[in-house]
């Protein structure tokens, strides 16, 4: 007996002008799932993930997060974004605020929660991403991996039900990739529902429940990582995997 999936994407089409970058994508993510979307660059992965939290509009199809229809002109974006956290490739921390302030801003200003309570939680979150002692550091004083972990903590402070990760290790130095992946892995183990666009195949294989392979705006193939990586059926998947593995 499976409950209603947390995220349901049905036949989504997205075009920038005349160029259609997503051509009918459907997928479903259950609570607690970790889903990795992989594929060559330009295949529409990042666009799809931005559609989920309404950062960009899409023309056709439906995305439902906890029953909230995203493709609705009367969408309450704030309500949607309380449920969906997002982490970006370039971290996008607010450079004029310290690590702790970056984490506290949204709960205080958006959710109007009391400062003392928020600060207590923010310090706990920094500890969780193993950045205790960096409370008062500005983003410019932190390494890429540290900034990305602050960005993860910043999203978690909103207590989302779903976390979106958009190639979050792509801009990092190789030696700091591991610490960020470890943080995401811990999140997944805690039961957070995660959708990741990633090029980290080893990570996808170990952490994901389901892998989706996209190419030129469509999902070519999907399946649990065991079968997906050892036994891909589509020739495009086979070609991609032989290049990256």
């Amino acid at each position, binding site marked *: 007996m499976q409950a209603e999936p947390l995220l349901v994407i049905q036949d989504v089409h997205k075009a920038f002008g005349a160029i259609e970058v997503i051509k009918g994508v459907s997928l479903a993510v259950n609570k607690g799932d970790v889903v990795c979307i992989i594929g060559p660059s330009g295949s529409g992965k990042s666009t799809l993930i931005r559609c989920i*939290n309404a*950062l960009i509009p899409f023309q056709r199809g439906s995305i439902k997060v906890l029953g909230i229809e995203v493709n609705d002109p009367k969408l309450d*974006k*704030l309500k949607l*974004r*309380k449920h*969906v*956290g*997002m982490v*970006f490739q*370039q971290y*996008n*921390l*607010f*450079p*004029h605020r310290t690590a702790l302030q970056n984490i506290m*801003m*949204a709960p205080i*200003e*958006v*959710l109007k929660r009391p400062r003392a309570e928020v600060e207590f939680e923010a310090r706990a979150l920094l500890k969780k991403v193993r950045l205790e002692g960096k409370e008062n550091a500005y983003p410019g004083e932190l390494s890429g991996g540290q900034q990305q972990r602050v960005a993860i903590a*910043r*999203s978690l402070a*909103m207590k989302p039900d779903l976390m979106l990760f958009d190639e979050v290790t792509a801009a990092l130095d190789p030696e700091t990739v591991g610490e960020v992946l470890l943080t995401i892995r811990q999140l997944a183990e805690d039961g957070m529902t995660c959708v990741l666009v990633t090029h980290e195949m080893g990570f996808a294989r170990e952490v994901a429940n389901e892998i989706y392979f996209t190419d030129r705006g469509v999902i070519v193939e999907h399946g649990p990582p065991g079968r997906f990586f050892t036994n891909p059926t589509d020739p495009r998947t086979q070609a991609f995997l032989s290049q990256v593995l």
Partner: protein
Amino acid sequence: MRVFLELPPTLHRASTGSLPALRLAPWHGAAILLIILATPLYGYAAGGPAPSSALAVLVRWTPLLLRGFGLNILISFMSMAIGTLLGAGLGIALISERIALRATAWSITQFFRNAPWLILLFFMMYLLPYSLHLGGLTLALPDWLKAVIGLALPVMANIAEILRGAVQSIPPSQWEAAESLGFTRSQQLWLIIIPQGFRRMIPPWMNLYAILTTSTTLASIVGVNEVVTLAGQVLGAEGGGPDLLAPLYGYVLLLFFIYTYPISWATRWLERRNAS
């Protein structure tokens, strides 16, 4: 133009988005001093009788000229304050998501940025009444106050443009990150974008102030008793001799140099600090 090339692209856009930068160097001051000091010698060499040396005339009239210069500073302060307030509002309208508001703000900005300052000054002189009646309150509008308003208009338009440039120099990913955290558009602007852009607004704002200060002399044309008007009167009182012309106006120039050079210097210092 060489100085612009030294600036990073974002600052370049923010400062040239308004007015060319006022770049003063110490040798400018030295050159002005030379004009003042060299002319009396020229006068003697020409063989004319020198009723009193130019320096003595300058010293005698210094209290009056300084009082006039004080009015220039007062006009510059008030124009800057009014222009900054109005310009901030106009600048916010320039980046509004509402097209009608943005288009209106754009037209106003373009008009007042491109209109000659002197024409705006004339307009205000003749359009504004001698006094304003607000309810039971009567507010006198002397000429210098009209000049304040006339000069505040181009300041407003340039401030709006400085604000827009600074906001646009912040990467769009900052808006995106703020939006994904649920901040409203106005929260994004006031909590995240403006605080980051603020630092970039200061140098062009100071540059604008330095240019405004020198432009307050335009008020002499519409009869305000500021330093250039008074210098003309001093020249008349001293017989209007050509010998006095260069030292007298050179002296006025020196006053402006002494006042604006530190501003110009500080502007460049801030630009360099922001760039690093």
